[in-house]
């Protein structure tokens, strides 16, 4: 039975309302972890992100009838449909990102829509990071800006995909491709975290930590050194495979 040490942190940051939500739940021989960032500029961002996280945690468990990555994709699509229903019922624009990690059957599966991220750390290295669906990330991919500048770019808030709309909401899905091992680790976070913490710094702080909570403390201390006065909401989930 796979065991995890995980820590969930979410905060309004320098804003009045926290429009992020984060949560976790059990899966067959595993767990699911979810971060959702309600889009500011759209009313009810907090309602949107809450809807996504709740829907995914309340979704039917994977039963082996479809591959786990398909289950994860379907679960996100179903959450998107629920958000669309809510939006129509309240006649309000509601949009959210999502970053989700499902560890089940000994493997890890992740998915994202928008610019919340999943990081996978394997054998003391960064194995994989999800790609943002944003204009700034496209500029990085084209070589116009460096990776370190994605969070500082003027187009950083320009998303190319999000949940809650009729289109441009397709999740990207990935998997570990191999069995998850003891010592493996994951981070899920909204842009309010990764804007201020570089990829390698998540790894450095993992290598210093004996628990998921300690790992989060180290990461958040870096954040505190770098924050502007009105910093965004932030959500962080650290997961260590025991």
């Amino acid at each position, binding site marked *: 039975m796979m065991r995890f040490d995980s820590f969930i942190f979410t905060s*309004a940051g320098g804003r009045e309302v926290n429009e992020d939500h984060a949560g976790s739940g059990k899966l067959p021989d595993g767990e699911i972890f979810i971060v959702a960032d309600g889009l500011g500029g759209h009313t009810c961002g907090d309602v949107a992100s809450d809807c996504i996280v709740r829907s995914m945690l309340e979704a039917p468990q994977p039963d082996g009838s479809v591959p786990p*990555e*398909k289950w994860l994709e379907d679960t996100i699509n179903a959450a998107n449909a629920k958000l669309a229903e809510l939006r129509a019922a309240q006649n309000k624009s509601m949009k959210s990102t999502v970053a989700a990690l499902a560890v089940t059957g000994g493997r890890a599966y992740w998915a994202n829509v928008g610019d919340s991220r999943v990081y996978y750390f394997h054998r003391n*290295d960064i194995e994989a990071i*999800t*790609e943002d669906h944003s204009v700034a990330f496209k500029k990085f991919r084209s070589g116009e800006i460096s990776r370190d500048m994605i969070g500082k770019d003027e187009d950083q808030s320009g998303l190319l995909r999000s949940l809650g709309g009729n289109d441009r909401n397709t999740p990207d899905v990935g998997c570990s491709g191999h069995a998850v091992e003891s010592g493996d680790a994951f981070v899920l976070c909204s842009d309010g975290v990764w804007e201020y913490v570089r990829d390698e710094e998540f790894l450095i702080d993992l*290598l210093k930590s004996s628990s998921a909570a300690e790992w989060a*403390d180290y990461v958040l201390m870096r954040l*505190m050194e770098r*924050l502007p006065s009105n910093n965004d909401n932030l959500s962080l989930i650290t997961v260590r495979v025991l």
Partner: protein
Amino acid sequence: MSQIINQNILRVSDNTVVRPENSAAVRKGVPESNEPRMLRYQVANLQGIGTCPRQEDSFAFVNALGGEQAVRNGMMAILADGMGGMSGGKEASETAISTIKTDFQDYDPNGNIPDQLAASAVRADKIIYDMLGGNGGCTLAACLFLRNKMYFVSEGDSFIYLLRNGRLFRLNHEFNIVHESYLEAIHNRTVSAKSVVHRPDDEALTHFIGDGSGAAPERLVRPMDLYVGDIVMLCSDGVGDFVTENQVIEALGKKSTDEMCAELDRCINEGAEGKYRDNYTALIVKCTY
């Protein structure tokens, strides 16, 4: 049925350092040996008294010249900054260095390195506390380089940096009042610049070697892999607080470790006549073959 794509996986190694020659990423054909090629280390140090009446920083390299000892037991770089304004700063820093060096002779390189390093720091803490009665102490930054990996312990406000591919990373954090405030804000879930009230004594240390607390130092619980081209710098706050990170990047970008030290020295002292300068010490370790 929608196609599952893996295009979202970003391989960070696409734009990172050259890895040791026999790593899976760059291996070609069948290697003659399964033994990894061992890194060698070019080292240099910089030290100055600043405008202080005496030098209270201490440092040491152990096994820096390489050889069988270095291959078997590793190489150490150790730095301690005696606390000014308290008694016995120089005595404290020298004692911390000698304690770590002595313990290192008995380390088991196949044992738990993080635990051994932490135990040495705790032992130094007790010795200095007994020596000075809690009225003095020092910082500590100690790095062990073994089999292409690095371990460290740290306490106080000295700096441990890694320069990799032109990008600078601070490896350790500071044990001072402002960082305690950060931790308190984090635990209160108020992560914003407004949640911390800055005080004149923000930089005062909350933990140091000699405070008698026996508290575990900060350390790498798992080692960090090192690659050719990596540069590790340990320095006292007389460097870290007086030189910007961009200046550090520029200095560590020089060709030789001696030139790196010369550039750091220039950054600290140029145009600083008449201004306060702390004792300053930097230890530079460049990874090469």
